[in-house]
């Protein structure tokens, strides 16, 4: 069970428009996945749904800033906890097939 923050934590995340904010104002959205394969094989499905790039390194992640209700995509080094780059949503957007 993952802990939700106390009222404030120390780590600062600096995002466009909202500026530097304590990490406690954010919800962690997890790693940005590859665009889902519509009809995957069992291995592709397991990779898509379960497998993660677990090793330390640069990870592209979703972060949600609650007070302003905005999602950000950050590239963060999961060993040093430093944010290297703000990724624009367009870079992660992928079209979805519609009926």
């Amino acid at each position, binding site marked *: 069970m993952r802990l939700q923050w106390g*009222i404030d934590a120390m780590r600062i995340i600096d995002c466009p428009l909202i500026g530097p904010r304590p990490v406690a104002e954010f919800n962690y959205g997890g790693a940005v996945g590859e665009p889902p394969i519509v009809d995957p094989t069992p291995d592709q499905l397991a990779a898509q749904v379960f497998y993660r790039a677990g090793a330390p390194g640069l990870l592209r992640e979703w972060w949600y800033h609650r007070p302003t209700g905005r999602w950000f995509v950050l590239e963060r080094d999961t060993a040093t906890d430093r944010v290297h780059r703000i990724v624009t949503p367009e870079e992660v957007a992928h079209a979805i097939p519609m009926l």
Partner: protein
Amino acid sequence: MPFRCSDVRAGEWIDRSRTLRFRFEGRVYKAHPGDTISSALLANGVSLLGRSFKYHRPRGVVSMANHDVNALFATGTDTNIRGDITPVEDGMELQPVNVRNGLEKDRDRYLDWFGRFMPVGFYYKAFHRPRFLFPFFERLIRQRAGLGRVDLRWPARRRPKRYGHCDVLVVGAGPAGMTAACDAARRGCEVILVDENPFPGGSLGYQWSGNADALQWRQRLLDELEAHPGITVMTSSVVLGYYDDHWLPVSTPDGIVKVRARGVVVAAGLIEQPAVFRNNDRPGVMMASAAQRLLEHFGVLPCKAAVVLAANPEAYAAARQLQASGVSIRGIAACGESGREGEDAAALASGGVPIWPATTINEVHGTNAVTGVSLIGTGSEVAAQERIDCDGIIVSTGWAPAAHLLYQAGGRLRYDDTLEMQVPSEWPDTVVPAGRLNGAFTLDQQREDALEAVRCLIAAMEGESEHEARSLFRDTVAHGAAWPVSRHPRGRNFVDFDEDLQLKDLEQAAREGFDNVELLKRYSTVGMGPSQGKHANVNAIRILARYMGQGMDATGTTTARPMYHPVRLEDLAGRRLRPTRLSPLHDHHRALSAEFMEAGEWLRVAHYSSQESPSAAIADEVRAVRRSLGLIDVSTLGKIEVVGPDAARLLEGSYTMRMGNLKAGMTRYGLIVDESGVIEDDGVVARLAEDRFYLSATSGHAAATYRMLQRHVLEWGLDVHVINRTGQLGAMNLAGPESRRVLERLVDIPLDEDAFPNLGARESRIDDIPVRLLRVGFVGELAYEIHAPVSAMGRIWDALMEAGASAGIRPFGVEAQRILRLEKGHIIVGQDTDGLTTPFNAGMPWAVHLKKPFFRGRPALAHLKGRESQKLVAFALPPDSPLPRECHLIIEEGDIAGRVTSVANSPTLGHPIGLAMVESGLAKREALLQIRIDGGQMVSARRMATPFYDPEGKRQVAGYPESREESHQ
């Protein structure tokens, strides 16, 4: 007070004009305001202040700076009180800790004689065989464990915390810290200066007492601190630790201040290190800085006659200082050369004080107090002949930097062979060392080092990357002994006073294979006591380094973890903040004497109490809804607007069923699953227009669903706006056969079946209030859900209650709703489903439209369809059957075959009904379900189809259903 010297000291902390009275072990003593417990007792000649944790040896003041826990006390309302630093108060009732029958006659004092039977790690090697005896030994050891005693009746006194902000936080208000603070302020920075002592000044206040320049400089700094508006001084305050991004919580007398700084100057000074010799823990043996603090801060003489163990210039300065105050210096054993040729040494020698080169202490005599000492050549094994009588041993053989914060900020230390002390070797450019902990010892060195620290810090803070590199002002003489340890065949030469660890214990631990610094610490527990190794870690590393024949740096250091000093849980907790969300109808419910229950952050009505028992009240509420009319507040539901051209596309991708073909003015049940196909949330989707939808979600998952929808907008590049109106709108559900008759009179649109069919959605008005009406209900009766701005909910509730009075309208709560929905076989996400339940497990294949090319979780559901290992089934029990509870197990041939997820006595049907998640095999065989209830008794339940009540759902669409119809048995 025999040990209080009469002449007033320059920077004294005590107020001699007033006298306090306090009691220690029942005896009354006098003291002055500003005295700490230790200084007051020593002033009265009481030097035995505590007993050690393991051997119960007599202990007194050794650091006078909270770097050890020899002097621990308890009062009626507190324990583990640190005597060195806690002010004594008038009328205080003090007792020692961890002793039985008083300090003098402690019944456990004999443990010291059995020391030889308790070598390092002894408790790993004993008491576990034979096994049946271990509980006896464990109780014996546990009784001895711990220091102070807690009182279960103590109330919690939470102290509010607050946030602080500054450009530069300076840790330590000694000469370097004060200089840094003033310089940073002069350069326009907002500065916070923190010091753990009640007054700023640091070593300037007790080490340079004979030096006129020092005292003058101190006064100038104090005046500038006072005058400069940009400097906030926090005294009696401790920086608990350095946390990511310059976050420094400071424990102050008025609660914790969490400071965000742009830059930090760590000028926390030094921790004096004890020397290791036989009986070095006797009351009366103390470090030179402790004697100087007693003298200059409290006007207390540490002893009458002292022998000094010296390995640095500070030793000789301290000796002169004590001599000038009337302490007779019987001699100085110079176990290190540094300072022996200095000016102080020369003055002492000319004054007749013998200085013995290459000499150290072999043994201290006396038990509850020092009576004498015998010396030994540092090289030779032969003890010096005569014993020198004295009542005090003053030790000045070395220092350790208080660089914990620097280490936590990523800085590192290395051993400096010149200074014989660890100094910072690297540090982040915005967390910089200054002063003695950076090796700057003379006053000039400390001033220059502080100014350099601020120059480089501010350059880094302003982002000037290539500023001139920092120059250092480290001293060029040794300030400690390389090996301040002297062996003795009969041991009792302590390295860690908290944990009662002798030299032989550490060498024995290394010999048994625990020969790296982390294993040595964990096996011997050196540095794991309440003072966290402040007086023990450096000597422990020296002993391990020598045993392993390697250098200090090669041996490494243990990690310096927060907290620098212990901090109370009630200070960490701070003000109690429990955000609680209230429905707009909260006061209405209170007026109806509702029983509330917590649902996440919300308070919801469980049921409205009446004369009978809760279960009877709930049953009445159920019957009212079935027979006439009920009204429930559902304002905690998630309420989300989805507007824009791609609105349908967003919902098509987010829900498992088709949403694009939903006609405007209609609603549809919506199910959301996660990527692995597990049910996450459900609710109602209403289409108000081609490009406008209005969704409801369960109160527990609404925020997560809202975030998910927003994320999909970005992920799929859609042109749509998603607005969370959960708290902005209230909602209530009018359910029961009379609902249409009553609502008709209040709204301005026709409610007949054609104009407003079941599952329809309309925008209308009640009085002048804009409302949305949805023909949906969880409870399976003719029902209308009314959504309106929270400001108007009270008026709508009153209007409905009034209009429905004649129809027997009755408010109902969550408990009744749970029974009503169960009678219709509707699931509750999170109760009938768990972390692995897919729509197929929950018996809802109809909700999964795999024909859709894409929706969240589709690939997983396509893979899982038809392969579910568990299924949700419905069951009923005869009216007289004992009622199972939720999560009682279904047993099949002795194995677990499922569990009851929902069960209740149905007032409508007159017998228990329920849902159960069972193995698919059992689900297929329409066999009886064997449920194991409390006490292991088995009951058999017969399988049923759902809904249990009104299977064809006639009542939900009946224009004016017969309201008086008796519920069928």
